[in-house]
């Protein structure tokens, strides 16, 4: 019982990390059809932001609180920079954005190496994010609890924005029909830019969260990007609820596989499961229904 509960928690926290990364991807992928392979490097930028803030301020607790919005800004600005300089030229060639952003991600990794050095840097967790709360004999580590809260919070805010604000309405309109949205006076280019900012900013936040559980080093984005894309595809592109379900589903499945098999086997099994699932349901869990032929 303890073990199962512990593993469920492990899966939930892994799912939260995947969700934080995948939220931004699913937004940009859904709205613009853009596959941003450099998304992982925005995550890395967020993590290094946390590191720099901590170097400057010193106190781990306040640094963490400052780093979160700052990382959102850093990630978002990097995203907008990428969008305006490169991606906006490639909207009608989605496969090419994949390769172009891959090139960008290579350069960003090397840049991080040259600036911060290749070894992992330490971002100290604040006191209140160390240790654990014991429930039913199972230690719930507070760091991971924080990540779960962060992910849930991000989903809530994002859903609220999409549902209730005019920005959200514009985004939804562009996702559903770019042509019609433009006809009704929405500046779709500006909406794209805002979406990119938000999506990339979320990656920055995910980066700060990751410093609590993983190492901060130039290649950290690569570790998660393939998984995050699978969450996006399995959840249904552009679908926040799909991403939520897919992320937690994949996280929990992986944790359970890992407990019964080994960690390596779990990853292989999981990837095979997703590939098989997408053969059965290529549009993912949820999809925007359109009248296009595919």
């Amino acid at each position, binding site marked *: 019982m303890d073990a199962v509960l512990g593993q469920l928690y492990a899966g939930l926290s892994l799912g939260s990390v995947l969700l934080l990364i995948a939220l931004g991807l699913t937004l940009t992928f859904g709205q613009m059809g853009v596959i941003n392979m450099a998304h992982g490097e925005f995550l890395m930028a967020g993590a290094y932001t946390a590191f720099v803030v901590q170097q400057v301020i010193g106190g781990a607790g306040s640094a963490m609180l400052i780093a979160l919005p700052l990382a959102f800004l850093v990630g978002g600005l990097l995203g907008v920079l990428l969008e305006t300089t490169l991606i906006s030229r490639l909207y009608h060639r989605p496969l090419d954005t994949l390769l172009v952003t891959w090139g960008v991600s290579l350069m960003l990794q090397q840049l991080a190496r040259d600036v911060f050095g290749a070894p992992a840097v330490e971002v100290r967790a604040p006191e209140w994010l160390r240790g654990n709360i014991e429930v039913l004999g199972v230690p719930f580590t507070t760091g991971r609890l924080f990540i779960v809260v962060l992910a849930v919070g991000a989903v809530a805010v994002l859903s609220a924005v999409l549902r209730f604000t005019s920005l959200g309405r514009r985004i939804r309109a562009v996702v559903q029909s770019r042509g019609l949205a433009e006809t009704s006076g929405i500046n779709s280019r500006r909406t794209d830019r805002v979406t990119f900012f938000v999506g990339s900013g979320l990656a920055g936040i995910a980066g700060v969260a990751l410093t609590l559980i*993983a190492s901060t080093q130039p290649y950290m984005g690569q570790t998660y990007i393939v998984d995050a894309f699978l969450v996006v595809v399995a959840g249904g592109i552009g679908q926040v609820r799909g991403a939520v379900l897919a992320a937690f589903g994949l996280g929990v499945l992986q944790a359970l596989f890992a407990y019964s098999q*080994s960690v390596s086997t779990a990853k292989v099994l999981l990837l095979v499961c997703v590939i098989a699932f997408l053969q059965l349901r290529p549009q993912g869990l949820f999809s925007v229904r359109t009248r296009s032929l595919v």
Partner: protein
Amino acid sequence: MPKLRRRHVGATLTAAALVLGTTACGSRVDDTGEASAAGRAESCVDTSGDSVRIGLLNSMSGTMSISETTVRRSLELAVEEVNADGGVLGKQLEVVTEDGASEPTVFAERATKLIQSDCVAAVFGGWTSSSRKAMLPVFESNDALLFYPVQYEGLEASQNIFYTGATTNQQIIPALDYLKDELGVTSLHLVGSDYVFPRTANAIIKAYAEEHGIEIVGEDYEPLGSTEGIQTIVNRVQGSGADAVFNTLNGDSNVSFFAQYANVGLDAEAMPVLSVSIAEEEVPGIGVEKLEGQYTAWNYYQTVDTPENEEFVAAFKEAYGDDAVTSDPMEAAYTSVYLWKGMVEAAGSFDVADVQAAADGVGFDAPEGPVTVNGDNHHIAKTALIGRVNAEGLIDTVWSSDGPIDPDPCLEGYDWAAGMDKDETYC
């Protein structure tokens, strides 16, 4: 289906014929599986001038560059010192550097280049087992010399490689002795990265444990460089109630492991962790406070108290800044240059066969203490040191073996290892 046009078929056939035509010559492998010596490339090492070339082959890019850059630095430091001291056999060392790019195939390619194009007298470098395995056939088929500076899984003894890091009986077995005798450990949980070193190390540990009545309560592997399964592993470690953890995790997985370990309330008092792949340079990335009091097993620490080490650390800090730390693989790399120098001078020649013949018994007062080359298995006798991470992030020696331990890569001197599968090529 396409209708093939004749002339293209013709061109293709011509090409095929050309290919077949060229296969007629070349030596075949005889019954013993040994290639005839006739086809081997001749060494092109030029020792007529007043300098001689050596190759440094380390990953300066890719994931392994974190560790291998530091090895490169200590190799360069050693070469500088040797040159300032008059060189080897009166010849200055001319360094050719290559990047292994953390890719086994690149290591093989660059090793070939160093030997065949640059005509180096010896190559120093490599870190991962896969890079060594990739280079081994290159050095054997070209009959050249590689000095490999990292502790590894043992069960190998090529005549073309000198292993200046520890083999298993100089690191893992002393660590187990320490756990058993000094800490009174009777149950162990094994945690490692999923590759050959941890797998082999754990096979040895399990054989040892069976002999000495230690219970292995769990064995978990995390894919190299990954952190996603760490929480599961820590859950299992905590649930196993082992006396101690034997940690063969490599690289960044350690960061995640120790963070999670501390977060669930475990520490060196509750369940000590003995790591064999965490050295001084990895400590800051993991976090000193998470590691403080935990154990490591190596043959050298920056804090080792010898006059040679004092000089080595001072020289290193002068060259690379006060923040630079020294670690076991760096020291082993530094030592390897001096050992090669010793062998060449004992042989009076740079020739590979002469060096191999003269290698046995060549010694050096290394920063870690005296070391001696074993001419049979090409490993070196070293002293095993168990250390504990201190509050400054350095490692203090808490136990050391009685003098240097003779290398035994095939574990022939241990009865309990007799039943283990071993590589028949070398063991």
